């Protein structure tokens, strides 16, 4: 799509169904992934996405262009999802999304490194990363392993890695949509990628190191 934000908003306000259908399709996957942070099931997430577009249309006249249209739509999604979660009194720890550093977590199991007081190589690899054979990486089964590893991540990590690495968003887009600081976005991404790498290593090297 080559429309600028202003042109897009004008087209929507003028009732241009094609312009609307294009962004609905283009942003759908990302919207669904963000909705899943706050909702327990895929079907509730689907409903949240539907409700979001209704709210977007209803509020379109009030869009002032202070953020990009995409960011604005994602903010409405997050609010819709939170309201929905509160209504269903599901206690999702929103604060965890904003302060991941409260829960320290190593990207690699500390047992795989030599002790800090090792005479020659403190903190060096004791059990270095094992191979990820290229021919097996592209196999369908391996993709299922990755899907499952992502599914098993805490919701905020899952959202960040999905948007960055599956949907191909920039760090800025992710920060804006999820209202994350630069540092927190990076911490969440780091943990998510670390866990998925570990899942791959474990799957492709079933024998203990």
């Amino acid at each position, binding site marked *: 799509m080559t429309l600028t934000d202003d042109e897009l908003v004008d087209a929507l306000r003028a*009732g241009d*169904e094609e312009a*609307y*259908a294009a962004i*609905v*399709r283009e942003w*759908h*996957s*990302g919207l*669904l*992934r963000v909705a899943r942070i706050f909702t327990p099931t895929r079907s509730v997430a*689907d409903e949240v*996405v*539907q409700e979001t*577009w*209704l709210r977007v*249309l*209803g509020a379109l006249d009030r869009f002032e262009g202070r953020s990009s249209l995409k960011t604005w739509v994602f903010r409405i999604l997050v609010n819709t999802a939170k309201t929905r979660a509160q209504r269903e009194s599901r206690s999702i720890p929103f604060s965890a999304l904003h302060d991941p550093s409260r829960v320290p977590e*190593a*990207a*690699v199991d*500390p047992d795989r*490194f030599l002790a800090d007081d090792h005479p*020659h*190589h*403190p*903190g*060096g*690899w004791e059990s*270095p*990363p094992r191979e*990820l054979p290229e021919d097996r*990486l*592209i196999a369908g089964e*391996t*993709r299922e392993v*990755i*899907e499952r590893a*992502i599914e098993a991540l805490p919701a905020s990590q899952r959202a960040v*890695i999905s948007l960055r*690495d*599956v*949907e*191909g968003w920039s*760090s800025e887009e992710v920060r804006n949509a999820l209202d994350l600081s*630069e540092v927190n976005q*990076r911490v969440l*991404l*780091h943990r998510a*990628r*670390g866990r*998925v*790498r570990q899942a*791959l*290593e474990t799957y492709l090297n079933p024998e203990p190191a």
Partner: protein
Amino acid sequence: MIDTEALSCQELVELVTDYLEGALDERDLRAFETHLAGCDGCTEYLDQMRTTMRVVGTLTPNDLTQAAETALLQAFRDWKRSTS
């Protein structure tokens, strides 16, 4: 030989995302690259993080189902009618 005094392997793995995101300051970047140049384990680790990103990138985004698309387009037509 690895210069273990500057940065240990265990410390380096925690900086990999900062490195890939271009978020290391000059001093840390130098320590990171110096360590990497002499360490096979960390070179492999960085490589695997890049591989992980690449393979995750081959997963398919969630497509819009036909039913959802129909409902969303209908909502748009209803909205249009209500505003005109």
